[in-house]
């Protein structure tokens, strides 16, 4: 290679580099692509500089040509942007320019939003609307406020935990009631002893109750007291309501026996039977005929309180049922009682209350028990016997 050719190659090579550099930088500045001018006004440009990027839809589409201060204090800063011609179809009259930051502390750039398709296209030199930039200092001020609140909250939490600490320290040292409970073993020992004693007490109390029951049973049969129970008509209150049902069975009874309570009982307020012979026809019917359910329905009359009348009705039902079951032979599980409590009754003229024995045909569903527990208990005790 001779000297001149070598020199020519050197010059061409370096000039090519120069042109490449100029072209690269020029294309960044849109020197070689058609552009148009767009303006936006801001009260504050937050450090936006000449030469900053303009993004349309996140794509680099122009540069900031100039940032000019206003002529008077009431004016706004004018940002002039050189936009790539290709964005002209997207940017419309209602597009909005905003100044944003790359990352948290990066450079400022202008973002131009897409316009609405029904709006006119922008002409070179048009001014579009803008939104004020979000400034780092404002963010920091807000964050500062938040931090202040957080700090106050932490202080409160600190105080609370301080209190907790002192409380738990006191407990640990055995101060106060809880501390004594936790730290003093003797209290637990006392508890333990007390519980043992209580256990023994309960056991002896149970024995005592058993004895008392035996005594009571004996007393009931003692001649001095027998009269009371006899007059009352039944001995054991626990038996009350044993065979009671919750409601009358469905269907109509095939046979009905009605009695005035005055004809059957000794006094208006007792369950002691007197005219029990009158039950003969009902008892014989029950013993002689097949039936589904028989119900002794008792109204206690209009006198007395509801409570005593319910007890009276249940007592009378119990006495009647016992009498019939003992004197006439049939399946006594089918004979139930139904106490109506304080009711004058339909047929009674005396006001003592009335008794109906209702006999339902075979196939009648057994109504639910009024006191399932009691009848259950009774049944099981019967079966164990």
């Amino acid at each position, binding site marked *: 290679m001779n000297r001149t050719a070598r020199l020519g190659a050197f010059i061409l090579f*370096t000039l090519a*580099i120069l042109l490449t*550099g100029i072209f690269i*930088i020029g294309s960044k500045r849109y020197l070689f692509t058609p552009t148009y001018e767009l303006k936006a006004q801001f009260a504050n440009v937050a450090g936006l500089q000449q030469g900053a990027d303009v993004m349309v839809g996140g794509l680099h589409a122009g540069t900031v040509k100039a940032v000019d201060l206003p002529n008077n204090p009431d004016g706004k800063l004018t940002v002039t942007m050189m936009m790539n011609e290709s964005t002209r179809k997207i940017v419309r009259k209602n597009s909005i320019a905003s100044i944003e930051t790359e990352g948290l502390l990066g450079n400022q750039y202008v973002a131009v939003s897409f316009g609405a398709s029904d709006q006119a296209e922008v002409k070179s030199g048009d001014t579009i609307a803008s939104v004020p930039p979000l400034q780092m200092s404002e963010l920091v001020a807000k964050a500062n406020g938040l931090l202040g609140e957080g700090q106050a909250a932490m202080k409160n939490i600190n105080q609370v935990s301080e209190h907790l600490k002192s409380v738990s320290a006191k407990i640990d040292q055995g101060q106060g009631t809880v501390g004594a409970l936790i730290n003093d073993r003797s209290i637990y020992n006392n508890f333990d002893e007390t519980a043992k004693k209580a256990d023994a007490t309960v056991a002896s109390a149970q024995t005592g109750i058993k004895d008392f029951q035996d005594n009571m049973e004996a007393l009931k049969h003692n001649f001095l007291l027998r009269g009371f129970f006899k007059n009352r008509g039944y001995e054991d209150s626990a038996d009350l309501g044993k065979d009671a049902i919750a409601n009358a069975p469905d269907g109509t009874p095939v046979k009905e026996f009605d009695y005035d309570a005055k004809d059957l009982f000794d006094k208006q307020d007792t369950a002691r039977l007197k005219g029990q012979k009158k039950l003969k026809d009902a008892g014989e019917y029950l013993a002689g005929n097949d039936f589904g359910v028989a119900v002794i329905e008792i109204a206690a009359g209009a006198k007395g309180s509801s409570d005593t009348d319910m007890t009276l009705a249940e007592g009378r039902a119990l006495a009647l049922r016992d009498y019939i079951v003992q004197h006439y032979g049939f399946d006594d599980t089918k004979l139930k009682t139904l106490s109506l409590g304080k009711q004058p009754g339909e047929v009674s003229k005396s006001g003592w209350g009335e008794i109906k024995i209702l006999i339902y045909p075979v196939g009648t569903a057994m109504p639910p028990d009024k006191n399932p527990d009691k009848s259950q208990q009774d049944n099981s005790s019967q079966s164990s016997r």
Partner: protein
Amino acid sequence: MSTNPTAVSAVHSKPNLLLGMLEWFGEFGIFVWQVLCAAIKPPFEFKEFVRQLDEVGSRSLPLVMLAGAATGTVLALETRQSLVQFGAKSLLPTTIVYSVITEMGPIITALVVSGRVGAGIGAELAAMKVTEQIDAIATSAVDPRRLLASTRIAACIIAMPLLTLAASFSGVFMGWVASTLMEPITLVRFINQGFQGAGFKDFLPSTFKTCVFGLIIGCVASFQGMRARGGAQGVGSSATTSVVLSSLFVILADVVLVKIILLIWS
């Protein structure tokens, strides 16, 4: 020797330090003025200019590109470390491109050229001077300043920006190679990111300020060569002095030029 001290002897003879410096600057000013006056008058020494342009430009190209490549590589490796610490790794292309085209390319080129060309011109002219060839040229009615000095200075002025472009190119390219070896990035993306926000004010003034470096290297080397005294020792000291002084003045001039460029373009 003592009556006509060279710059080196002026620096070393303490009592005459200030005086020697002033004398040197005076002589240098007169020399530059005479060369300028001789250069603008025809006939122009075009053949000699082309020969010198080849000597300064083409023959320096491999050296300058190698220096630029090394600079770009080192920048990529070193800068990456510090940028990673700040979580600004994505700024690596920008940093490399910006450093190379604004400062590293020009100054590395100037120092390499002042080493290679400055020493060459200084030694060549000094040898011609001590063997009285320059006096012979002068007696044949040819101004040695125009024939020897102005062509070399002009060649330096023209070649420097071109060499700088080559150095910057190889610096940026090797910067990309080094970057992509550490973390793959396409050349297009590297260039796009690198020239992000770069303007002509970053590229052209810093490239063409090297014309001033060329002027300094050419003038200092020619002056030192043409005022050489003595025999082989004079040639040696002339070559050394031209390299030392041209490198020093290039760096000092760079300070002033950068300040001027910043004043004008920002």
